[in-house]
């Protein structure tokens, strides 16, 4: 009997198989099947969690080699539980949304391909968060990366999409190489891939430090943190449900999940300040870029980077529960914002926020988008408020006041950029947006979850065996004041036209130029390409040339040697006789 936790990725895997063999007329309805699979997964997750008590691991022999067993291990602890919950819940919403999102212009074969890859992604993402061994995690990790590549490049006729897909794949692969190196170092040092055993055995030495650095680089490339973040905004060239599912709610969480999973090891080797520094740089840069971005989806991508920076900051302070809780709430409100963005793009036919001018007021889209925006800003009493306060609480308890001050500034900035986003998209007396129910229902559902997300705080902290931090403290009030200040800043500058000099400042133009970081990574890529070209030149002109030279010489030799073959019988007969005589003489001489 297969242990129940192993069945968790199964529903999505089945959907993938269905999508691969589905007849063309069923392609449009595969989304409903995916939604059902998400619900089944959610059920399986909770059944398996309820089946065990607290943290549980299940093992199944995978393969043996060189006298060693490599087991498949599923760990279902609080962290995996929350993350697999996110994957299946957002999966339900995204598959349903996809049905409405793709109109009749898509060919059925393309839709089957889309649903197949999306299910592959969901199944492998579940594999990542449930993995109990690093080897298994890496395999699923790569599957996640490749499905991200395929989904960004879904419209493979569009040059922009293909470029973005390549960029994402290459950036992530850089991190993957580091991650693999880290995993192999850990294996060399501790002789096992099993995460729990590695964490139990871990000692602070140089090899472990190098491995930890590899893991962190792998994680930040997946989670689009500075300096490997440039792929995420470009990845918005993919379909909007993909942006909602992979590039805000789940895939980009894989890196943070890995950091959270390996956190004891990372803290042991003293990477905490470096994680915090990476997080703060990411938060600062992404907030500035989100404040000047005009593309509705790219702005949300920067805010995703920003919010993931918050999570990384929480993790650097050792607050796994707070970080996980923020991942949970962020998945809800960010997927919601992407859903809203998709509806807005459908309604207006543009991604430029300045030209959208959608109706503000009592219409469903403006309300759900408003809920998402308020949750992101951290407005009481929405989910974002609670998760942000738990991070703040962890930082205050850590007691590094520079980080706390930076966090406060980040709270203000995130309120400001999301308010700007909202004010640009929605305007008084603008156009009304209509959307099919398959698009609106998931958005409304996530809006309700974002509204009620605060109620889950105690439950999530309870899973980690911790008490939820108090909600009402002076710090909370201060951050709330900063949120309001952020709203006010945006209101004054965007609506009242105050501080018109602001977009002209050096900071704003630097942010518009994306702090040259895209150019930097492009430069690195170009340099790597140069190295590759040099290698290709050496390969072609030295290695291949030597081989070709040998072949040419041999050919010339053969052409010379074949002149011996005259075709005249007399020649051969003479050779036989002469050879025989020579042989006899030789034998005689040797005697």
């Amino acid at each position, binding site marked *: 009997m297969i242990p129940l936790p192993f069945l968790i990725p199964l529903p999505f895997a089945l959907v993938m198989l269905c999508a691969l063999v589905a007849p063309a007329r069923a392609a449009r309805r595969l989304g409903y099947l995916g939604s059902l699979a998400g619900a089944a997964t959610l059920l399986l997750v909770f059944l398996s969690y309820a089946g065990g008590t607290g943290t549980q691991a299940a093992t199944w022999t995978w393969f043996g080699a060189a006298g060693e067993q490599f087991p498949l291990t599923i760990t279902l602890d609080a962290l995996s539980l929350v993350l697999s919950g996110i994957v299946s819940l957002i999966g339900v919403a995204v598959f349903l949304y996809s049905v409405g999102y793709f109109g009749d212009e898509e060919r059925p074969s393309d839709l089957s391909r889309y649903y197949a890859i999306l299910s592959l992604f969901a199944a492998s993402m579940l594999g990542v968060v449930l993995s109990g061994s690093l080897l298994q995690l890496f395999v699923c990790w790569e599957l996640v990366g490749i499905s991200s590549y395929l989904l960004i490049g879904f419209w493979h006729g569009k040059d922009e999409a293909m470029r973005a897909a390549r960029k994402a794949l290459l950036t992530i692969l850089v991190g993957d190489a580091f991650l693999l190196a880290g995993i192999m170092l850990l294996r060399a040092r501790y002789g096992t891939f099993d995460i729990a055993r590695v964490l139990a055995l871990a000692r602070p030495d140089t090899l472990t430090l190098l491995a930890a650095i590899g893991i962190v680089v792998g994680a930040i490339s997946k989670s689009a943190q500075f300096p490997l973040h440039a792929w995420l905004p470009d990845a918005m060239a993919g379909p909007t449900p993909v942006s909602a599912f992979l590039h805000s709610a789940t895939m980009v969480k894989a890196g943070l999940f890995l950091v959270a999973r390996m956190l004891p090891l990372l803290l042991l080797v003293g990477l905490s300040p470096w994680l915090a520094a990476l997080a703060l740089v990411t938060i600062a840069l992404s907030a500035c870029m989100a404040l000047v971005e005009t593309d509705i989806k790219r702005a949300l991508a920067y805010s995703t980077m920003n919010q993931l920076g918050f999570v990384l900051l929480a993790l650097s302070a050792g607050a796994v529960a707070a970080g996980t809780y923020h991942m949970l709430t962020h998945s809800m409100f960010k997927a919601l914002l992407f859903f809203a963005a998709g509806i807005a793009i459908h309604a207006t036919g543009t991604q430029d926020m300045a030209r959208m001018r959608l109706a503000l007021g009592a219409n469903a889209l403006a309300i759900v988008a408003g809920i998402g925006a308020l949750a992101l800003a951290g407005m009481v009493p929405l989910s974002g408020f609670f998760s942000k306060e738990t991070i703040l609480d962890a930082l205050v308890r850590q007691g590094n006041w520079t980080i706390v001050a930076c966090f406060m500034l980040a709270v203000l900035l995130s309120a400001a950029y999301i308010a700007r986003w909202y004010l640009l998209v929605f305007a008084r007396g603008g156009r009304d947006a209509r959307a099919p129910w398959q698009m609106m229902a998931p958005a409304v559902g996530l809006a309700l979850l974002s509204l009620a997300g605060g109620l889950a705080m105690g439950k999530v902290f309870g899973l980690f065996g911790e008490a939820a931090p108090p909600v009402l403290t002076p710090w909370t009030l201060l951050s709330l004041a900063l949120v309001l200040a952020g709203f006010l800043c945006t209101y004054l500058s965007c609506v009242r036209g105050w501080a018109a000099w602001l977009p002209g400042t050096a900071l704003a133009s630097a942010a518009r130029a994306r702090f040259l970081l895209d150019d930097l990574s492009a430069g690195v890529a170009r340099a790597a390409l140069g190295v590759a070209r040099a290698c290709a030149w050496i390969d072609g002109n030295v290695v291949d040339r030597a081989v070709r030279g040998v072949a040419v010489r041999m050919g010339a030799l053969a052409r010379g040697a*074949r002149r011996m*073959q*005259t*075709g*005249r*019988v*007399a020649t051969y*007969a*003479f050779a036989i*006789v002469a050879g025989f005589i020579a042989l006899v003489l030789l034998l005689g001489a040797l005697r």
Partner: protein
Amino acid sequence: MTLPVVLGVSLAVFALGIYGVLAKRDILRIAIGGTLMLSAVTLLLVALAQALPQQGMATVQAFVLVVWAVEAVEAIVAIALFLYLARKGITDIDELRELKW
């Protein structure tokens, strides 16, 4: 007849055969040269068997019979080939050099 005489005759016939094979261009003459060489070998074998009886007469007889069989087969194939080529008007061996490379 003494052994040296027979050996000398055998050698002479063999040399004649080699000369025929190497120097002649006529296909039929070459075939005759080959046959002469085989005959020289047969003669040698028989003479040696006579002179050195302890080597066993049966072995030599077997050898000689096999050589005759080979000779017969060779003659059949060679003459068939010769007739085929002669009908096409080819008698010079140097005209047959297409199968070199």
